[in-house]
């Protein structure tokens, strides 16, 4: 009897953390669903105060800014992860890199934004998507470095030895055996990092800045979903508030989708073991 009571209490308490997620999804669907239409995805924003318009520029902008961040951040991160796992596993340099990555991960995103402003926006003289990508790349690097390291460490040593015993040099063993064997895990890490940065707003406020028009040029200011949500929610127009909810709904489902895909990949790795 006592067992039963405690089990019930614990089950109820365990469900508590799941409740906010469902409340958020409920709120987003309630407020945002009415904004969703084909036009919302395909049209540019209407002039202030006028009804209608869409977030096509922000969707394209998010894809470009995040895509560029991946191009900047991922190669560096994978190389660093390879170094940590395959070369200096126990060295002092590795320990330093690990600590730096952990600290970088803890730097508030607004600070990252200011730094990207100083590094890219100031010298260029204007806001740009590129500066936003640099800020987001800084945010994803520590995540990808550490997951790459952890995943590559899981690659069994007997595979490295198998390659080495065939007379394969170490660097080729790393690139052609270790990395491909851990590739699914590395991709999972990248997806998790992308999901994390796709919704970041603070680093974009004074880098990508936002743009009412569609642009594909990464050297110009560019819109992104979080920026649209921020700007529209702060506006005095009721129609924009509604669209901010719509954009939030789109953003959350994007991130949710990325999370689900990365979970499926992670399960695939677990299944192969």
């Amino acid at each position, binding site marked *: 009897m006592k067992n039963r009571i405690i089990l019930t209490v614990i089950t109820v308490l365990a469900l508590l953390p799941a409740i906010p997620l469902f409340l958020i999804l409920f709120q987003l669907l309630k407020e945002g669903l009415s904004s969703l239409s084909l036009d919302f995805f395909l049209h540019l924003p209407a002039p202030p105060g006028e009804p209608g318009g869409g977030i096509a520029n922000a969707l394209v902008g998010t894809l470009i800014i995040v895509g560029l961040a991946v191009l900047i951040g991922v190669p560096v991160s994978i190389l660093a992860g390879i170094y940590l796992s395959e070369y200096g596993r126990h060295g002092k340099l590795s320990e330093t890199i690990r600590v730096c990555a952990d600290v970088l991960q803890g730097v508030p995103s607004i600070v990252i934004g200011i730094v990207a402003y100083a590094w890219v926006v100031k010298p260029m003289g204007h806001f740009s998507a590129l500066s936003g990508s640099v800020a987001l790349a800084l945010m994803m690097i520590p995540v990808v470095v550490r997951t790459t390291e952890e995943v590559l460490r899981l690659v069994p040593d*007997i*595979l490295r*030895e*198998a390659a080495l*015993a*065939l*007379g*394969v040099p170490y660097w*080729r063993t790393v690139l*052609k055996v270790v990395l491909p064997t851990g590739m699914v895990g590395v991709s999972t890490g990248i997806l998790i990092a992308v999901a994390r940065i796709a919704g970041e707003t603070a680093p974009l406020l004074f880098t990508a800045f936002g743009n009412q028009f569609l642009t594909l040029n990464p050297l110009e200011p560019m819109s992104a979903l979080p920026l649209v949500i921020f700007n529209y929610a702060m506006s005095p127009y009721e129609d924009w508030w509604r669209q901010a909810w719509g954009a939030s709904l789109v953003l959350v489902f994007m991130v949710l989708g990325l999370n689900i895909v990365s979970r499926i990949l992670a399960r695939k790795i677990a299944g192969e073991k």
Partner: protein
Amino acid sequence: MKVPYPIFRTEDLCAYYGDFMAIKHVTVSIPEHQVTAVMGPSGCGKTTFIRCLNRLHELLPGARITGKIYLRDEDILELDPIIVRRRVGMVFQRPNPFPTMTIYENVLAGYKLLGIRLKREEADRIVEDALRKAALWDEVKDVLHRRGTFLSGGQQQRLCIARALAVNPEVLLMDEPTSALDPKATLQIENLIVELKNTVTIVIVTHNMPQAGRISDYTAFFYMGELIEFGPTAEVFTNPKDPRTEEYLTGKFS
């Protein structure tokens, strides 16, 4: 009795893990085209010994080797380890086919991983040849383009043997190759080893005394890092010179 040419010859070979001396002053000649069994109790240094012969030992942090190891009169410690490992193949305790590669690619791994390009016909010929030598061809010839990891443990181990043979090594080192396999798969590998000695010299670490008796021509007996007995297997087994060998063979310790 004609004494075979010694393909491997060590002189005062010592191997260390940091300060620990795992192999102590071993001087031995390993005859060509024979199967040499390396035996001894756990921790006696038998695996370390064969890992010196293809210079895998020195990859571990803190590990080093002193002395001389001659492969056909060339000191391998003076050679590029990459070249040594091309000439001295290895099969490990647990089958370790590359999980991202097909059976076909696994056999060619010794070429592909080095970036050596082969013509289609040549690649096909090497794969068939190596798989036939490893007595695996008939079982896998229709599934060459499936992953090697789908095979049974015994088949995977023969795939690893094929992979090692594909680059035409002069010596094949085997580190307890059957210890992870069932009796049937073990028997297949034993038969294979006896056949292979016509093309390649085999040095096999084994824990299994009957196995050493069945397949080996020579036996090296290690104890606490020292080579205490070496000779034709029949002699070592029936008339051991060192009391420690006799004690091991009669099961006094293991």
